[in-house]
């Protein structure tokens, strides 16, 4: 089975409306099961621990499929892969970060941070950008203020 065929089959199964269920003998840590039971009984996060497990499994599988499809696409079309700066700009937009209004600034800091940290994440770029902007602002304020000692 190719990766594409596996993806298509997983997608078919995820889309299935077949109500049939199966019993599984899945072994999970006892503490995790107890935590899930408490979440159901005391926090009402789901109707049952089985529902929690099934929902979590579905969420993970859907995310895995999407990422695998994208990875296959990037293998075929490397130029389609968004850059670290592209993703940092989107992260800024989605988090209402003011730097989203200055994408050229994010691009500059993304270039800087990958020099030191080749595996930097979009969030790292934004933290680095915030830190650099703060430092630059402090330096500007210091330069604007006259030397008080000389004036005394």
């Amino acid at each position, binding site marked *: 089975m190719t990766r594409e065929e596996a993806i298509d089959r997983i997608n078919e199964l995820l889309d299935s409306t077949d109500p049939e269920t199966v019993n599984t003998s899945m072994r999970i840590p006892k503490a995790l099961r107890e935590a899930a039971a408490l979440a159901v009984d005391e926090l009402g996060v789901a109707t049952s621990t089985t529902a929690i497990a099934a929902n979590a499994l579905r969420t993970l599988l859907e*995310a895995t499929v999407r990422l695998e499809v994208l990875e296959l696409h990037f293998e075929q079309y490397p130029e389609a892969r968004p850059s670290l700066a592209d993703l940092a700009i989107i992260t800024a937009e989605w988090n209402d970060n003011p730097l989203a209004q200055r994408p050229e600034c994010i691009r500059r800091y993304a270039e800087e941070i990958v020099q030191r940290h080749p595996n930097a994440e979009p969030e790292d770029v934004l933290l680095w950008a915030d830190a650099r902007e703060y430092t630059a602002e402090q330096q500007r304020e210091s330069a604007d203020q006259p030397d008080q000692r000389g004036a005394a």
Partner: protein
Amino acid sequence: MNLNRIVLLDNEAVQALRDPAHRKHRSVMGYVLEAAQSAARVVEIGVAVPTTVRVEAGWDRTGPSWAFINRLRIEDIPLGPDLADAAAGIRKRTGASVTDAHLGAAIQTAESDHVTVITSDPGDMRAVAEGKPIQVVAL
């Protein structure tokens, strides 16, 4: 869909996503990738397309030429009775096209905390949102 954020695609966004040679392909891919990575971190961000946009874009889910985009699990937003009523109202008030009115209905009825629309017509999307806060990504 009850998500933290929903990303809606218009016709141009669909075309850009589908075609690796499209000048905006990488731009739209960024949003789809970020949504997928967020979902993997259990931050629920979904990507969806109104079905009338699919019609306009010629996106036939049974067509082999749409295999890549089909595999991305982009959800349909059907034009059911309630959304049809909402879209009809938007079309009457704004003069929007059927697809834009459907997008507007999807925007206005979205249960997500945030709505992002990827579009070639930012002005039209703000018009059909009719005041609902949205983030518009212009292609």
